[in-house]
């Protein structure tokens, strides 16, 4: 597919919510895509079609609806495996989101593999979902949690990892593929290669990467990878944990219940095969099925086209915003090193006030600590504003954001 800016502009017709007027007739300018993306009509229809035509529980009954539902559910698993270039769809575990995926690893893998004195390494620019589970685990095990700091450009100081690895005590390095606040793209391959040399496992929070760029898990060769459907046109309540089969096979289950068992007796149980061992209870069937349509939609556009489109938007946003007096931009100035996320502060106006004032003009950004309070502390700010882009974002929308900021200046008499 030839992807011009007109191609991307025409995609907007697939998103009913983008037609909406908000706040007394203002055209919606949706720049909060790092939080969640909007859904195309194809995904909305796939979910509603499923409920209209097939709705049934999966993996058990032998009637027609159950068989159709099971097949559709499992097709998504195959689609995810294909999308991420992994050889085995048994390595794909459906969870409710990135947060649950990381908690699954912290609990089911951490329980048997982390002991007193061991070290888990994470980074200063993690989302709380890649910090708190490790705090819980290390506190429980009397292990230690260490951070790779960031430099003034918002990039990781990878040398610190060498120091940690040299202790011989590191069990896992957990990091985000793309920072949800700074947009920094982590040099994942470099980290993974260092960890492999040291015999250390790696976990990647890919929530801000999989929706925006080609992620090839065979090439990356990490041990665990987590991401969410709702940040990539899919429904809420669906996420994926991918992990290497040999690791999953040795892990104890995360939750006990239906579907995850082979045989249950009064005092003992044997586990079901992968991936079902980790999918206790009735899963989010309809939304998993809708997720397949979302992936197909992205594949049709092409992940490289999406990356280039966002790179173009980010470049434009950084150039235009730099011209606005009183703006502080966070993160590296090189668009190539970042995803489609721009965090900023405007003079000394609290981001919450910025968010409320520009919302009156229909502009939706995120104001707050973005579930990254460790990073906020490092940047020495209470909060930031964050504009984040996706396939349907246009340069005109970035212009609207900048014009709306002028209202903030007016209100605060800057």
């Amino acid at each position, binding site marked *: 597919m030839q992807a011009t800016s007109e191609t991307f502009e025409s995609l907007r017709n697939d998103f009913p919510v983008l037609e909406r007027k908000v706040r007394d007739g203002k055209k919606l300018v949706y720049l909060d895509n790092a939080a969640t993306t909007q859904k195309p009509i194809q995904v909305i229809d796939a979910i509603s079609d499923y409920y209209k035509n097939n709705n049934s529980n999966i993996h058990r009954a032998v009637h027609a609806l159950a068989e159709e539902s099971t097949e559709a559910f499992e097709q998504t698993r195959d689609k995810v495996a294909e999308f991420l270039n992994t050889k085995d769809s048994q390595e794909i575990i459906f969870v409710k989101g990135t947060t649950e995926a990381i908690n699954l690893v912290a609990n089911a893998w951490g329980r048997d593999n982390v002991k007193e004195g061991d070290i888990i390494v994470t980074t200063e620019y993690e989302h709380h979902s890649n910090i708190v589970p490790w705090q819980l685990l290390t506190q429980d095990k009397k292990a230690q949690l260490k951070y790779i700091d960031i430099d003034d450009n918002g990039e990781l100081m990878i040398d610190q990892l060498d120091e940690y690895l040299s202790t011989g005590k590191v069990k896992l390095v957990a990091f985000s593929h793309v920072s949800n606040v700074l947009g920094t793209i982590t040099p994942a391959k470099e980290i993974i290669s260092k960890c492999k040399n040291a015999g250390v496992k790696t976990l990647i929070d890919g929530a801000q990467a999989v929706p925006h760029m080609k992620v090839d898990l065979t090439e990356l060769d990490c041990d665990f990878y987590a991401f969410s459907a709702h940040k990539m046109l899919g429904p809420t309540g669906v996420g994926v944990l991918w992990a290497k089969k040999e690791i999953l096979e040795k892990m104890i289950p995360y939750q006990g219940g239906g579907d995850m068992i082979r045989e249950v007796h009064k005092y003992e149980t044997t586990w079901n095969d992968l991936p079902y061992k980790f999918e206790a209870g009735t899963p989010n069937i309809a939304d998993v099925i809708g997720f397949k349509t979302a992936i197909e939609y992205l594949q049709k556009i092409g992940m490289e086209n999406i990356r280039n489109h966002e790179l173009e938007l980010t470049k434009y946003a950084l150039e235009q915003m730099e011209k606005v007096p009183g703006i502080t931009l966070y993160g590296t100035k090189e668009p190539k090193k970042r995803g489609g996320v721009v965090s900023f502060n405007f003079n000394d106006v609290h981001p919450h*006030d910025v968010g*409320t004032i520009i919302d*009156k003009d229909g502009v939706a950004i995120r104001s*707050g600590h973005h579930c990254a*309070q460790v990073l906020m502390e490092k940047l020495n700010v*209470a909060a930031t504003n964050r504009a984040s882009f996706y396939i349907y974002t246009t340069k005109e929308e970035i212009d609207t954001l900048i014009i709306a900021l002028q209202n903030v200046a007016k*209100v605060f008499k800057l």
Partner: protein
Amino acid sequence: MSGDPIYTEMIIEYSRNPSNYGKIDEPHIHRHDSNPLCGDSIDLYLNVDDKKITDVKFDGKGCAICMACSSVLTEMIKGKDLDDVKKFEKDELLSELGLEHLIKTSPVRIKCALLSLKALKYGIYSYFAEKMNDVESAGNLKDEAANLY
């Protein structure tokens, strides 16, 4: 901009120059509170002499609404008797700044407006419970603080 105004002259002025901003060393009452949603974070300090609030200060980081409301709250309770302050209602504070509409229009921003009042109610709750053995007032204050927004 349309609808009920938030960013009035008074709010901007208070956010630029908050009243009673600072810290009291070794205060009789100290309460820290924050909004997990937006990161507003304040500390409220009070000195009390024979049930009268002799001094009150606050510090911390917050948006214009949070700063303005904290300022006005401290102005309103300074010199007042704790028995009056314990009855203080959120409407009294909001109407002082013309922000009553936030209760209906912005469930998010109302938390910014009432953070300092929540800290106050929790702060004097402990005081009533521990220093004055007034279990009934303490219980009421704790409930009010917990259900403020």
